[in-house]
Structures are given as structure tokens and as C-alpha cells.
């Protein structure tokens, strides 16, 4: 969720009240935003103006600046009406060239005429663009915006895609001219890497770069990277041209609407915006921009009342919605229908359920009547069968004096293979594409790495160390929709001065006995019923030569025995790989056979 910093006194002035922290906290809580931090204490020490850090919902782009927060809260408090945004006559055009289809096909634009910035509103204008860029615009990949002093350029404007070498201009806050290629080099330099260098990847491999220029080919901006120094806006700028370029046209419209709705309040004619005619014949996007037509959505009042457990009249519902900037009027044709006007600042409303939620917030979540309808009587619960099996393993292991551990599921490739003296045949293990550290390269196919890491971290514990885990390992499976499945395993280790093989063998016996499975003498030769035995298996290289065995299990009479796991004395190299200076024996089996 984004956090917005606002000047505390400025906000309280806009809200017409100096709130105490508790009062403001309460207001935010009920409205659905969160007061994260009040910097008053820190600010007083540094002789700065106190700020409030407010966390807002990720879909409320209209709350990304103080103008929007105060507007919405004032409407919620009944202190203000929703502004009526109006368009004046267009005076210029933005002509979109077909070449932009190769890189960034959509454009939007508008003019803020006769605007008067103050230092605070100017800073807020810049900050809103930053917030939009990093949230809705997904770090400028989907949408990027630029603002220009209209009095330094002349329309009509052109949006084109040109070869980088042919784009030459002085970028914002620089003194020398760059061409497109040089600019990418410059922003890819180590000093710029964490700044504008974060955005070069969006265009750098394209044969053409998007560029906005005026009728005299004066370059305004190279989206999504940088504006030109020439068109730079200042505190004194009176006429602002906004350009928006995008790969997502829905979001381009949202961005232009949010920018002009928030800042047209500072124009001589409040809430009036000068539109720009977008000429974009090749993709059917020719239109007047922005579009201030309010959206209308019909919503069933029965639905709202039913979801809220209320029986509100149309007027009461409209009252709740008005607090949230939505304007409802009961239909004259259908008694159940309310026509709701959605202002351009509320693109988050997608479905009647969003209107229903606003009615609930307007009413107050904590004022809603508590439901009495849900009884627990009619439901019969049951555990997941494999979890029930797990619990039998867990209880039996703990009763046999083993400690349960809970290592992570992700581990390094080496921990899962090389350290266990195993080869990766590429057929089993799921590999991660983008881990932040080497610790998380694969999803484990055995519980052993995590258990050994736990033992390593607890080397100082008194000996013997006896720990177990019941947990999931993951295997690839081409035949499944998700291409992989979990398998519940049980693993237990004995670590001490001696390997303790017979102790681990005994624990296996205890577990098998818990699952009604008896040990069969002579590898099951003279018995065809349910049972288990262990057979030497020198193919498991994790174990010391001649000290590893597979666990064979026959579920019931007449069935073929199957291998369900293995046990043995861990190979000294394995223990060395995990920095464990002791001997150890280990057992692991697939617990799903007991389902």
C-alpha cells in the first residue's frame, strides 16, 4: 500500500480543524486510510514542519496527494461537495504518428491554463507524478507523464518514434545536448543507475525512441525517461502542458484525469481544464482529451441492503454514498435501481460491489448491525487426511523423544544435491527463476538439507541430537496442470559420538508399529501380509558405503512391496559439507503411503 506524506498543518487547515492524534487516527480508520506516522516530535527537533504519513488503498490514485486526501475527507465529513470538472475550448492538438506503435502506442494530453502554484502546491504536483509513476504506472513501463511550460513551445504537438541518433536535446537539469544514444549511456552510468537509470530498460533495446515535439520540432520530452530543459516548468509557470504516453490506454486516461482533477483547483478558473485534441487516426484513438463524462452505474438497492444487513431508504443509501463522492439517484422506472454517478477521480469503481462497499464505509463498518445468521451447527468438519497422517508421525516421534523442527522448504542447489553427494538429473527438482539469495534456488526434494542445517546451527546442544520433521517436498510432474506436486515426507536424524544406526532403525520400527506395520524377517520372504523390512542399497550415495538401506513396505496381502524411503549412516563427507563434527544416522520416508 502506498504511503503519502502531507504537511500536517496544511491538511488540518484544509479540513478546518486541528485534530488531536487520536481524533485524526479515528477519522482515518473509519474512512479506510491509515495514519502511519506523525513526525511532529522529530520535526520540532530539526525545526521542520511536521508531516503526517498516511497509508492509502492501492486502488485510490486520487488519494496520492494532499489535494485529493483533503477533498475526499471533506466530502466524507460533509464539509465539501464533489467538484464539477469542466472543459474549456481546446486550442491545440497532439498528433500521434503511427511510428509510435512500435514502442508506446497511446498518448493523452491536457492543459492547465492560468495556474498559480505556491511552493507547497508545486512540490505536491511533482510528488503526485512520482507517486503515479511508481504505483499505477508500474515504474513508467505502462504509463509515463511529462509536464511543460506551454509558453515556451507552440502547438500543434507531435508524438513520434524516431531513431535515437536523430533525437537531440538538452535534457532536464543538464546543460549540454545529448542524442538519444548518448542519453541512454549517460543514464546507465553508475551515478544514475539508481535514479533515471532504473527506466532505461523500457526503451533502450528499441530501434526507435518515443519523443514529443512541438510544431517547430522543439523536443518536449523523451518518454518515459526525461523532459527537456527547454520546457521546464517553474514555480512561476502559468500554463502547463501535460503529456502522457502509454502502453495501456485505460491507465493513460486514469493518469491524465487524476493529474488535472487534482491540480485544476489552482487555475484562475477553478476545476476548468483546457482539453487537447488527440489526432490518432491510425489506431482510432482520435478524441478530445481528457474526457470528463462521468460514468454512470446502476446498482440494486436490494443488493446493497442485503449485503449490509440493513433496510435503508434510497435517500439513506444516497447519503452514505455521497460521503464517498458517489452520487446516487433512485430510478424513476425501477424501484430497486439507483443510478450512481462516479466522478472521474474514482476509476477504482468497477462493479456494483464497489459501490456497495462505499455505502458500507459511508454507513460505518463499526455501526453495522452484527449478523446472527451464521450458526456453527450445520457443519461437520474434518481434517485433511494427509495432515492426520502427519500428526500420527509427529506425535509418535515426539513420544519417542525426538524434537520437531521446522526448517524452510527452499534451499540452495548444492544443499539439495552436491552436499548430499547426489547428482541432479533435472527430472525432479523445481528451480526458482528469480531468488534474491543463493539460499533459495530450489524447492527441496528431501527433508535432509533442512534437518542438517538445523543440526549445524545447534551443534552446541548436548549430544545426542535427535530431531525430526514432517513436511512437504516437491517434485516436478509434466502430466499435471501445475507441473509439480507436493509429497509429505517424514525424516528423523540421530547425531552423536556414534552413528546410532540401530537407534534410528528402532525409531523406524516404532513408527511402523504405530501404523500397524510389523517387521518381516528375511526381507519378507516367508510372509505375504502387511509389513516392512529394510534392504541394503549401495546406490544412495548420501550414506556411508555399505551402511545405507531402502525401506520396503507391503500395504496388504497380495500386494507388491514398494520402496517408501531409506535409512542409513550418513556419509562423513555429507556431515563435513554441513559442518557437523559428529556421526549421524538418518531415516526418511514418504508418509503418503499411510493415507
Amino acid at each position, binding site marked *: 500500500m502506498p504511503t503519502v506524506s502531507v504537511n500536517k498543518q496544511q491538511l488540518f487547515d484544509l479540513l478546518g480543524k486541528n485534530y488531536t492524534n487520536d481524533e485524526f487516527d479515528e477519522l482515518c*480508520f*473509519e*474512512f*479506510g486510510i491509515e495514519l502511519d506516522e506523525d513526525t511532529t516530535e522529530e520535526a520540532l527537533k530539526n525545526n521542520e514542519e511536521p508531516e503526517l504519513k498516511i497509508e492509502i488503498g*492501492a*486502488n*485510490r490514485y486520487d488519494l496520492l496527494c494532499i489535494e485529493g486526501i483533503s477533498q475526499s475527507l471533506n466530502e466524507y465529513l460533509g464539509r465539501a461537495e464533489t467538484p464539477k470538472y469542466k472543459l474549456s475550448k481546446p486550442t491545440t492538438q497532439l498528433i500521434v504518428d503511427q511510428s509510435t506503435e512500435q514502442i508506446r502506442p497511446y498518448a493523452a494530453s491536457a492543459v492547465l491554463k492560468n495556474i498559480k502554484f505556491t511552493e507547497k502546491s508545486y512540490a505536491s504536483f511533482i510528488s503526485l507524478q512520482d507517486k503515479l509513476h511508481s504505483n499505477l504506472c508500474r515504474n513508467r513501463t505502462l504509463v509515463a507523464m511529462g509536464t511543460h511550460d506551454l509558453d515556451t513551445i507552440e502547438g500543434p504537438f507531435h508524438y513520434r518514434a524516431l531513431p535515437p541518433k536523430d533525437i537531440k536535446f538538452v535534457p532536464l537539469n543538464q546543460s549540454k545536448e545529448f542524442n538519444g544514444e548518448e542519453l541512454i549511456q549517460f543514464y546507465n552510468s553508475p551515478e544514475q543507475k539508481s535514479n533515471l537509470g532504473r527506466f532505461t530498460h523500457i526503451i533502450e533495446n528499441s530501434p526507435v525512441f518515443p519523443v514529443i515535439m512541438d510544431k517547430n520540432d522543439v523536443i518536449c520530452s523523451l518518454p518515459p525517461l526525461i523532459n527537456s530543459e527547454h520546457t521546464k516548468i517553474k514555480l512561476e509557470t502559468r500554463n502547463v502542458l501535460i503529456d502522457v504516453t502509454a502502453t495501456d*490506454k*485505460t491507465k493513460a486516461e486514469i493518469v491524465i484525469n487524476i493529474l488535472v482533477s487534482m491540480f485544476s483547483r489552482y487555475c484562475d478558473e477553478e476545476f476548468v481544464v483546457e482539453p487537447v485534441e488527440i489526432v490518432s487516426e491510425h489506431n482510432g484513438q482520435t478524441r478530445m482529451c481528457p474526457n470528463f463524462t462521468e460514468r454512470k452505474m446502476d446498482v440494486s438497492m436490494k443488493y446493497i441492503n*442485503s*449485503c*449490509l*444487513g440493513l433496510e435503508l431508504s434510497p435517500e439513506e443509501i444516497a447519503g452514505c454514498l455521497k460521503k464517498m463522492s458517489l452520487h446516487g439517484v433512485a430510478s424513476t422506472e425501477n424501484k430497486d435501481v439507483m443510478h450512481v454517478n462516479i466522478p472521474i477521480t474514482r476509476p477504482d469503481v*468497477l*462493479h456494483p*460491489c464497489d459501490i*456497495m*462497499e462505499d455505502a458500507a464505509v459511508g454507513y460505518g*463498518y*463499526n455501526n*453495522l448491525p*452484527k*449478523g446472527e*445468521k*451464521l450458526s*456453527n451447527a450445520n457443519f461437520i*468438519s*474434518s*481434517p*485433511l487426511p*494427509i495432515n492426520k497422517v502427519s500428526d500420527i508421525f509427529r506425535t509418535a516421534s515426539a*513420544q519417542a*523423544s*525426538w*524434537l*520437531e*523442527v*521446522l*526448517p524452510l*522448504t*527452499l534451499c540452495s542447489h548444492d544443499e539439495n544435491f552436491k552436499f548430499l553427494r547426489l547428482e541432479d538429473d533435472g527430472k525432479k527438482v*523445481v528451480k526458482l*527463476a*528469480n*531468488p*534474491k539469495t543463493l539460499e*533459495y534456488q530450489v*524447492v527441496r526434494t528431501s527433508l535432509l538439507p533442512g534437518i542438517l542445517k*538445523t543440526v*549445524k*546451527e545447534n551443534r552446541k546442544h548436548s549430544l545426542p541430537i535427535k530431531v525430526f520433521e514432517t513436511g*512437504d517436498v516437491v517434485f*516436478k510432474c509434466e502430466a499435471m*496442470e*501445475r*507441473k*509439480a*506436486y*507436493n509429497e*509429505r515426507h517424514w525424516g528423523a536424524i540421530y547425531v552423536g559420538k556414534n552413528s546410532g544406526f540401530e537407534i534410528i532403525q528402532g525409531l523406524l520400527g516404532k513408527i511402523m508399529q504405530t501404523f500397524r506395520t510389523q517387521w518381516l524377517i528375511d526381507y519378507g520372504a516367508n510372509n505375504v501380509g502387511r509389513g516392512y523390512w529394510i534392504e541394503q542399497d549401495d546406490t544412495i550415495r548420501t550414506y556411508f558405503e555399505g551402511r545405507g538401506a531402502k525401506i520396503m513396505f507391503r500395504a496388504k496381502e497380495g500386494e507388491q512391496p514398494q520402496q517408501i524411503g531409506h535409512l542409513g549412516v550418513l556419509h562423513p563427507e555429507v556431515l563435513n559439507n554441513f559442518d557437523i563434527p559428529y556421526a549421524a544416522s538418518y531415516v526418511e520416508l514418504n508418509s503418503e503411503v499411510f493415507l
Partner: protein
Amino acid sequence: MSEFQLNILKHLGDLGEIKSTLQVFPDVDSQDVLSALNSLKAHGKLLYTKNDKMLYELTSEGQEILNNGSHEMKLVQLITDLGKLQIKDVNAKLGPNGKVGQARAFKNGWIVKTKENELELSEKCKDPSQLQDETKLLLQKIVNNETVDDKTINDLKKRKLVLPKKLTDFIVTKGEDFSLELTKFETDVTSDMIVTGSYKDLKFKPYNFNSQGLQATSGALHPLNKVREEFRQIFFSMGFTEMPSNQYVETGFWNFDALYVPQQHPARDLQDTFYIKDPLTSDLPEDKVYMNNIKAVHENGKFESIGYRYNWKEEECQKLVLRTHTTAISAAMLHKLAKNPKPTRLFSIDRVFRNEAVDATHLAEFHQVEGVLADYNITLGDLIKFMEEFFEKMGVTGLRFKPTYNPYTEPSMEIYSWHEGLGKWVEIGNSGIFRPEMLESMGLPKDLRVLGWGLSLERPTMIKYKVQNIRELLGHKVSLDFIESNPAARLDEDLYE
């Protein structure tokens, strides 16, 4: 009864009271005295109080001085014998202590230094036999246990001639059952006694109940799993069935698209989600009607929704991820429910994965507790009431609900409770009613509303049991001692400081 014990009782009988065991039994080690006294006290024969004394013992150097005179006296003797002594020869004649003797002899005014750097006896010291060897006399006093003032003692300590020694002494008086006889006490009840019945005639030694006993050897379940079990029992008691959440690898479709998370949503970033490179792509969901509904809902809107209005791509939903929430499983279960819609209660507590930087409160893996409740025409008030009942079972009351935003629930509510220890409202969970366009895409009827809520298993555990670092609770760095000594988890239990 030992001879010594009897001896104590005899003395006590004769004297009525033993004022100092040190004086009466000077040759018995104080430990032996103590154990004899304890044993007799246990029989009620006597009472005693401890009366420790500080004594001083001579060091080997001190003993040397007591036997042969102080270093200064030895120097005087030497000068007396030789008449004069070169300063440089002092150590040669008297060893390393010669210089000490020289310094003290000067201090006492016994010797003077000549121009030729020679030592000779002073005027004061005409007759050396009249000199008092103070050091030796003081040490004699110490040995005789005579009183010596603190300043002098400290001086001797500094000169490393004496060492302090604590002497344990006892004052002994008669006990309630004082006599010279002692019954033999048995220490333990044995099987023999039970078989023969001899226990009836025997006296047993009183037990020291002011003790802890031997530590029991035992295994233990993991603390986090114990809390998990508490949550499971709460769910079971409210009629919830456990979901098959044992599927870590998910498709973009089930983890995101099905939950109405748009394909450009930040949650789908490489920064937040673990993507899988092997295997690389999933199959498309089998139910193509459903998939097309999801596509329509994202792209152009359907089921009364205007949609997100972007180009929805199949390849994005075929990307494989490690599930970022167990809600991916809930979505699959709800899709299944659409075949036979009816009121349903489901839950899961299982692992989820986030590609986050690891710190004290974040791990790349943690557990999500999730409940899903479907019923006809249920209200937001029903959700609120149900949350109150659910959290009351873990001893959390007085909830407040804050509007919030989740892509797949609307309305959405964060659940807060007042935390007495922290003195503030803390978020304990997130909840909401699943969006209609998500459910109707599956084919669920409009009036079957579905509530969902979730919380992490680790966070309430850390708050409740004051664990500061998540790595002390989950993963291989957890201490086995912590697991061994962890008490039972009872979420409804009040924890007192």
C-alpha cells in the same frame, strides 16, 4: 549415627549449647560439621545457626618471617656482621627480598646510606639487639588469633604476608527431640519393603521438597506447530474442513488471475513473487469456460463488472510461481464448489512464499491461516460477528474493523484488536467478501456469498509469546533448547508478566 554425630550430641548434652563448633571441634572440616548438623537437625535433635568468621593465614613468605625474622631485621643482622654493605650487594646477599628489607629498614630509621653508596647502621640502632621486629610480632599476633586493627591487616595483605580465610562456625542448641539416641532413617521406599511389609516399622528420612527433581527426558513438538494446532482446533470447533493446501507450485492463473489480480499488478512483480524456471510453463486450466470468463472479466468486464480493460495474456497466467498465498487453493476449492453449490466452510494453515528481503519480521516463507465461508445472502454484519466469535476463541475481544483494499474482496476489512502490552490497536487479520465477478466466473450462483479471512501464523505467535525475530521461530536457526522448553500453546490463555 556416626561417631562424630554422637560426639556432637554428647557435647550438646554436657554444655547445653555449643557456642562455637570451631572451638569445640577444631580438627573437623567445616563441610563435615555442616552435614552432621544437617542430618541431626533433620532428626530434630538440634538447631544451629551459622556464625562465620574472617581469619587470616600467613602466606609462605609470612611464615618465613615468623620463623626467621623480617627482611629488614635480616639486613640489620647482616650489616651488623659486616659493618658496611654496598647497596648493589643487598640482593646478592639476601635474595629478592633484600630490597624490601632495605626499604623498610630505611623507613624504620635503622640504617643510613653513606656517600660511597654503602649501608650502615644508624645512630638509633647502636644496639641492634634492642630493636623490635614489628613485622614478626604482628604476624605472631595473627597466628595467635589476637585482634589486629583493619589498617594493619590491610597493610599486611598488601605486603602479601597474610591471606584472608573465611572460617565457617556454627552455634548449636538443643532441638525438640534432643537425645543421644538416633533412629535410623530410610532414604527411599523400596520394593523389598513393600513385599516384606517392613516399611510399616521403618522411619523415613524427610524429603527436601525445596528442590526441582531430575529433568525429564522427552521429545517435543515445534512451538509454531503447537500454535497451528490451536488454530486448527478453533476451525474444527466452528465446522470448517481442512483444504488440500499441499500444493506449493501454482500457476499464475490460480494464484493471481482467478483472484482478479490484474496482470500488471505489483504483487506479480519479480520483486515480490518467486517465479519458477524449471518447469517453466503450466497448462491452461481445464475448465475453458471458466478461463474465458476470467479473461473477459479482466479484459472487457463481465458479470456487471467493467473490468480492468487491458489485453489479458494467456502466457502470463501460464507462468509458474511459488504460491504467494493459500487463497490460490481457496480459489480452486471454490471453483470445485461451483459444480455443487452449497453453504461451505473451509480452512487451511500452510506455507506461502514471498521473494522478500529477509529481516527480523520477514522470511521468504511463512504460514498463512485462511478461512473461507460460503453461505446464501450473508451480510457484512455476519462477517463481523463471525470474526468476533473466531477471535474470541483465541482470547481476543473488542475488535474494530477498518475499510481496506484487496483485489479479490470487496468489501474488505482489516481486523484490529487493542493490544494492552503495546498500548495500541494492532492489525490481526484481513478479511472480506469475495468479489462477485470472481465467483460468478466460476459458475457460483449470485446469492451464494463467500467470506474470506486470513492472517499469518507467525505474527500472532510472535506478539503473544514475545518472540522478537521470526528466525527464532521458523527455519533452521531455531534453537533446540527453545523447542524443548516451550510450554503448551493455549491461545485463550492470559499471559501474566
